[in-house]
């Protein structure tokens, strides 16, 4: 009975994780972001145009760029958070499937980012047992270092194989936002989905140490 309970909780956790990942991909795909990212302002000089009639004189037309923010990479944050805090909820095959799907759907080179995320999550998974005793800022720093590392490897690899990439500035802004959003993802995972770090020595229903 207790064993059933445990496996059921794990199953629910895994399904929640997979659905959350799909939800994030889905929100990326909603067609609301069809202009390139920009912080508003104007990148064009005003055009002086003559009116149709002689009396209308010269009109000055000013242009403003539409504002479009860049979203942090919530998908990789979610995977990192869950793998660090509850590794059993985020098994590697779900991560692999979701990230390969995301690579295909979000127009990225397929496979590379997925491979890097798998490596990162496996490293975090191996350390999750030790990381649960760390203070939060150290956990944050570890995850941040991991994400920065795989981002650098990703960019370097793409430039080695001569794949055209987005601008560096944009990538840096996105990376910064991603790192800053980590506490938010942790909080939401904890408050809404109960993904907390097991306390040291906490046991499951069978008396096993988690």
């Amino acid at each position: 009975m207790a064993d059933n309970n445990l496996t059921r909780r794990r199953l629910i956790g895994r399904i929640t994780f997979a659905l959350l990942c799909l939800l994030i991909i889905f929100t990326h795909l909603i067609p609301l972001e069809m202009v390139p990212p920009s912080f508003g302002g104007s990148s064009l000089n005003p055009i002086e145009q003559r009116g149709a009639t002689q009396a209308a004189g010269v009109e000055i037309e000013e242009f403003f760029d539409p504002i479009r923010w860049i979203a942090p990479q919530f998908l990789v944050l979610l995977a990192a958070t869950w793998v660090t805090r509850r590794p059993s909820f985020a098994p590697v095959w779900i991560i692999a499937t979701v990230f390969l799907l995301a690579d295909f759907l979000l127009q990225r080179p397929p496979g590379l980012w997925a491979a890097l995320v798998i490596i990162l999550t496996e490293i975090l998974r191996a350390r999750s047992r030790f990381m649960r005793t760390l203070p939060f800022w150290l956990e944050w720093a570890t995850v941040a270092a991991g994400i920065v590392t795989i981002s650098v490897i990703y960019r370097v690899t793409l430039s080695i194989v001569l794949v055209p990439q987005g601008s560096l500035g944009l990538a840096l802004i996105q990376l910064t936002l991603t790192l800053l959003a980590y506490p938010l993802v942790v909080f939401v995972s904890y408050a809404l989905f109960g993904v907390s770090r097991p306390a040291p020595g906490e046991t499951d229903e069978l008396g096993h140490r988690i």
Partner: protein
Amino acid sequence: MARDRQQSEDFISPVRRLLVGVLVLFMLATFLIWRIDNPRVERFRMMVIDAVVPNFDWAMAPVTGIANLLSDFQSYQRLARQNSDLRRELQDMKSWREAAIQLDQENARLRDLINVQLDPQLTRITGVVMADSGSPFRQSVLLNVGARDGILDGWPAMDGIGLVGRISGVGEETSRVILVTDTSSQIPVTIQPSGQRAILSGDNTINPLLQFIEDPDLVKPGDRIVTSGDGGVFPADLLVGQLARGTDGRQRARLSADLERLEFLRVLRSQPNARIEEAGTLLAPRFQPQLPEEPEAETPEDGADG
């Protein structure tokens, strides 16, 4: 019963590690294959998108609708100002309209005189935007029309007014439009009225760059930019936008299409132009040209037009 879980993890970990290694290798192999044999993997990507995204559609349409509704509501406060602007513009437009009607009549008379036939093959298919690229580095949208509707790679897509992009990737039910703002988009254009040729190349900003203008002194801000049809991919004379000088001093295009509100796109069935490559065929065609008198039962099919 109280065995240490660490031990069991140690026991299964070599197998697990092997499997994870295989998984990572598989991913890297996918990447390498994509790099080496790009078109095949891109076709596979289109297949995946074709299989997955239409399933999201039931949820995507209402969410998009609600979000657009909200942003409409936000813009409500701007409406009053916009209204007065529009009134003034309307006054201006009335005089333009008179001029346009006169020109139209004159045009019709002249066409009649020279007996021009407008290209009957330039028909269009209307598609609904289903999804965007999902990445700030890529500018593309997904349409709900695909190979089923006869879409081919390379066809231009327009909103009501101006050029939006070009079909790149066709699935059975979906097709991807690379927007002109994407960094991989390069389109030959003509700047009117001076007739200067240039390349419109996207740089991931809302105003694409105009490169390789033959004589930059001959163009001025406000000039119309239309596609030139060079290279035989695009039909000529599709409106792109207006020339403007960017604050960085480079020539840019102010797009006529409203990229913020892409909902329906028209995909033009463009037929490849006859390319003149050798002088000899100009003088004496190798094949007998088809004469219009021949009884041709088949007319170009227009059934799929929306």
